[in-house]
């Protein structure tokens, strides 16, 4: 524990770097995944195509993927973010499609039948109703990205991976342990925060459950 106390500023900086790296990646991934998912939804050929590509990307080992990107975009944060975005894509795109699939068909039929235009249906009915399932996908993606981001240290992206990498190079077990524990704690916190968010995204279900429980 003395290590942690002696280096708390450095650890804090690396934690923040790690959070930033993952948040930016997830943000970009979400911005890409939502329109992509909407475009794919209900079209089995598009779903097959996108799943094949993102699935193939997902099977590439992270170290290999980062290394492939380095000659193209250089070292540092940029190839790491690109890599994380690509990894998150598989889970997020599926989450968007799954979320849209979870919107009951009768709700959509009623909306169309009442004369609501497609854009309004998408933004005020489909996406809000898809949100809980989508957030469940974001949870998985967040945990995955937080883990994989550690590898980014190899290509100079910073973050908690740096701690682990240095620990291995300098043979300092404490450094490795603190790095690993910090990554784990980060993943667990992100998971917990997203569970809370997921619950808040469906107030209608919570109140119904509460009413059912009290009845």
């Amino acid at each position, binding site marked *: 524990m003395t290590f942690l106390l002696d280096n708390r500023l450095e650890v804090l900086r690396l934690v923040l770097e790690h959070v930033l790296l993952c948040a930016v990646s997830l943000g970009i991934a979400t911005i890409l995944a939502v329109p992509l998912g909407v475009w794919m939804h209900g079209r089995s050929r598009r779903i097959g195509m996108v799943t094949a590509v993102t699935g193939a990307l997902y099977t590439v080992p992270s170290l290999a993927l980062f290394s492939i990107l380095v000659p193209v975009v250089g070292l540092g944060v940029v190839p790491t973010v690109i890599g994380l975005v690509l990894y998150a894509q598989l889970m997020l795109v599926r989450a968007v499609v799954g979320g849209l699939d979870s919107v*009951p068909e*009768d*709700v*959509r*039929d*009623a*909306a*169309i*039948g*009442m*004369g*609501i*235009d497609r854009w*309004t249906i998408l933004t005020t*009915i489909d996406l*809000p*109703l898809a949100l809980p399932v989508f957030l469940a996908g974001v949870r998985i993606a967040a945990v995955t990205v937080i883990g994989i981001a550690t590898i980014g240290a190899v290509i100079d992206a910073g973050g908690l991976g740096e701690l682990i990498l240095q620990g291995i190079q300098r043979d300092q077990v404490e450094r490795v342990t603190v790095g690993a524990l910090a990554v784990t704690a980060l993943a667990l916190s992100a998971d917990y925060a997203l569970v809370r968010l997921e619950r808040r995204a*469906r*107030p*209608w*279900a919570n*109140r*119904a459950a509460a*009413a059912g429980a009290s009845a």
Partner: protein
Amino acid sequence: MGDSRGVIEFDGVTKVYPGATAPSVDRLTMRIEAGEICALVGPSGSGKTTAMRMVNRLIEPTSGTIRIDGVDTRSIDVETLRRSIGYVIQQVGLFPHRSVLDNVGTVPRLLGWDESRIAARSRELLDLVGLDPSKFGMRYPAQLSGGQRQRVGVARALAADPPVMLMDEPFGAIDPLVREQIQDEFLRMQQDVRKTIIIVTHDLDEAMRMGDKVAVLQEGGVLAQLATPEQLLAAPANDFVQRFVGGDAALRRLALAKVHDLPLIPLDVAHAQGFGVMVDQQAQPVQWANGTPVRARIAIDATLRTALGELIATGESFAPVIDGMGRPVGIVTTALLHGWLDRPVAQSIDQHAAAGVDWHGPAQHGYAPPMQAQPMRFGSSRG
């Protein structure tokens, strides 16, 4: 409300789905008058839902024209058209993330009403369908029972006061015990709002109950018969309709009419014929002129089917009809019930008016009693 807009005309409407060899709806031509309920009924595959969904262009006809108040629906912007047509489906399709009041206000909001007017209108409609707005208004749909959800669905469809309503198996998902009650409530409400309504159902009883007229579709989307419920039962147009309405058509027909529809034998005529009714001090019928007790009393607003059941259960062939106070107002006989079934009924709406005057009840001709002057009961040999 209460205007006479909303005449729906199908003119040679055909729908062939892409890749299908046979049409789902085949040259459908019919006219539904303003303020009328038309039940579309038929087995699955008869195209009844397709026919309904072509009215608000959820499905586009392959050929033919649908007109509302004489205007070809294709000439109207599709969203404008749909906003002017109430739409109710079996699974209701309430928006789960919106409160009941927000759900009801959906179409007014699309039409750009101001919020205070939307709120007032939504509350008014919840009241109309029998839900207290202050109790249910802020709930989410998941916090309602199936019947309550269906009422909200109806309120939502009525919100912008559309002249036309389309209802696809609207009561199909509701508990059978509650269903009849909700159907009755709906019919009472229709007395006030007078919408032109198309109801799709596979349930003949529901069609008979709800429909001013019933369109029976058969396989291949061919209109087999368009008629009043009574005409359908009394004069099925073909074997298909005959089979569809089933073997107990006579009993179903009796259920459609009330005792007061019959030309009851007036009390004085009965007296003159020797089967007068004697009453007690409370003016309740107690015995016949010949001293036999009155066993059956039939309420004036009972259905003919109830009357027949009562007569059979008591072994009588005639019985006094009583008003709300229990006082006799006439005599009903099994012969009158038979006469009701036996009167000529046209096969279709067009002949309805002509057929209506064809039948003269025995009363108009001077009544000849259907039996001996002395009243007799079945099995009276032992009495």
